[in-house]
């Protein structure tokens, strides 16, 4: 494949104005699927979380999950949308082996929510309002595994295997209107937008929003128009962008790629493009064509959804703060400076830190662990920090440090255990025998032993050289294999010296 020409980013922005649009799919964390009482779970053995409905067996019929509707309305309200007085489902017809019925139940001309907007904060605090066209309910497809060929990708595969566990998982698709004016900050806005949606759905408690699991998936639309031109350029839709970092990179890449083509007098093909995380590039997919005749029609097996005013009122009253307002409040509550707080947001760890504090941890501790050790390990492994540990586990870990049961060093060891899936922090402390020795008797015995080896230390302390205690503390910590609280050892040594 010929190397794709890319224009320098700043040059591209000089010549063209980028216009963005996003379609974000959010998997709802209901207990059951959208139209079937099959469990909505991740990571089960293939084809175990299925019913006749999930498989589209002849005669099976869908029934709408009420909780999914409530979640969707809450999300619509949080996006500032109007909630449709009457909304209905439609069938989107196309053949694909991961689509059990060969139609997807979605919403077409009557989505549950429409006409909203959401404020997104860029790294320097600039607020951008992203207009939302609609949010609609639909069902996820199954999962294909391509076997044979060299790449594991669809091209060159000999055959494919289908697992329908994911088929029918409830989705809300959030569609923006075209976003103008982002200019050179378009990639940054893309990331900030997806991160805001992620924070929002997690604050609402309606999705796990773990991008690495596909709970939150972003299709990014990018088009360029020459400076001064009113008409929108031809857009591409980049799919499969499944981390915050990738969203930013993919938008940047598409701007550079399209600019290079347009500058040479070429035209952009309206097409789907696929993002490749490994190479940081997009590749051409299927061109949009007449074949995209989805033959939408109202789903005859389902009835309209007509939310009552009371329901909307109830859900509106239960809404969490808007992400931007929440950030401002948290920053004040936590007492972080601009840089500290922004780092958390930019690392995409605001929700993790927040949830950790909600489990009882102090904000500075939560920040220290997520932005420190956890982020370091995540970066080293090139995964999302949230895929390693849960806020609950981190708060447990912090509690163990706070209570003096673990030192920071031991806590890092325990964290590794948690990441390795050995159990809860408590269990790992128990299993590995890592607990700090808080029995003064054991400590005093070790101190006595150390003092016997270094008899002059007590005198030095008494003569005012308190720092001499360090040698004893070091020896004790070594003897206790680190499982002692150095501060307590120091206290005991000074007591001994009568200081």
């Amino acid at each position, binding site marked *: 494949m010929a190397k794709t020409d890319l224009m320098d980013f700043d040059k591209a922005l000089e010549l063209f104005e980028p216009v963005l649009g996003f379609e974000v799919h959010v998997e709802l964390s209901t207990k059951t699927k959208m139209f079937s009482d099959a469990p909505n779970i991740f990571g089960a053995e*293939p084809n175990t979380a299925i019913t006749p409905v999930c498989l589209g067996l002849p005669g099976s019929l869908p029934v709408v999950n009420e909780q999914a509707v409530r979640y969707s309305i809450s999300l619509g309200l949080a996006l500032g949308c109007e909630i449709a007085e009457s909304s209905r489902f439609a069938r989107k017809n196309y053949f694909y*082996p991961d689509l059990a019925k060969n139609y997807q139940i979605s919403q077409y001309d009557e989505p549950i929510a429409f006409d909203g907007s959401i404020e997104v904060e860029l790294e320097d605090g600039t607020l951008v309002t992203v207009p939302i066209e609609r949010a609609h309910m639909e069902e996820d497809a199954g999962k294909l595994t391509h076997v*044979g060929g060299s790449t594991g990708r669809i091209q060159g595969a000999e055959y494919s295997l*289908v697992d329908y566990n994911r088929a029918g998982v409830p989705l809300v698709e959030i569609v923006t209107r075209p976003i103008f004016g982002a200019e050179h900050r378009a990639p940054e806005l893309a990331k900030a937008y997806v991160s805001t949606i992620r924070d929002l759905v997690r604050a609402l408690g309606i999705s796990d929003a773990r991008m690495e699991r596909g709970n939150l998936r972003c299709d990014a639309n990018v088009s360029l128009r020459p400076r001064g031109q009113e008409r929108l350029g031809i857009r591409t839709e980049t799919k499969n962008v499944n981390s915050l970092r990738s969203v930013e990179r993919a938008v940047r890449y598409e701007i550079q790629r399209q600019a290079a083509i347009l500058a040479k007098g070429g035209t952009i093909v309206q097409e789907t493009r696929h993002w490749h995380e490994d190479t940081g590039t997009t590749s051409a997919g299927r061109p949009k064509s007449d074949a995209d005749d989805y033959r939408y029609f109202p789903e*005859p097996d389902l009835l309209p959804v007509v939310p009552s005013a009371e329901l909307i009122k109830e859900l509106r009253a239960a809404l969490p703060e808007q992400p931007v307002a929440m950030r401002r409040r948290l920053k004040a509550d936590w007492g972080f400076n601009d840089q500290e707080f922004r780092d958390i947001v930019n690392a995409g760890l605001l929700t993790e830190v927040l949830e950790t504090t909600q489990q009882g941890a102090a904000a500075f501790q939560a920040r220290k662990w997520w932005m420190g050790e956890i982020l370091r390990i995540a970066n080293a492994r090139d995964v999302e920090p949230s895929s390693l540990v849960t806020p609950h586990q981190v708060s447990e870990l912090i509690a163990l440090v706070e209570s003096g049961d673990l030192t920071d060093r031991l806590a890092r060891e325990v964290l590794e255990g948690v990441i390795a899936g050995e159990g809860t922090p408590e269990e790992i402390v128990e299993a590995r025998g890592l607990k700090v020795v808080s029995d003064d008797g054991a400590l005093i015995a070790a101190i006595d032993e150390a003092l016997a080896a270094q008899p002059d230390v007590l005198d030095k302390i008494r003569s005012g050289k308190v720092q001499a205690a360090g040698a004893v503390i070091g020896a004790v910590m070594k003897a206790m294999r680190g499982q002692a609280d150095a501060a307590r050892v120091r206290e005991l040594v000074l007591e001994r010296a009568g200081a």
Partner: protein
Amino acid sequence: MSESSTADITAEQVAHLAHLARIDLTPEELQRLTGELAQIVHAVEKVTEVATSDIPATSHPVALHNVFRPDVVGATLSTEAALAGAPEHDGSRFKVSAILGEEQ
């Protein structure tokens, strides 16, 4: 049936529809269906005579709304039962030939 509007449907159109519907047609079938479809379409076009813009559409014969299911897990199929009717599987997943197109 009048033959006047049979020209409305072409063989190319029927071939396209057959592709959308994933049905291979023999040349004979294509030819026959083109003629039949033209006739049928001509007959059913009658609906446009009375379907004026002021008339609402009826999708469901009995008007109901808000029919929901509580979010409670029910019985699932065993993998064996799910795969029992499948033309081909690998013991846990359904097996299909290579896919040329791509995910939607």
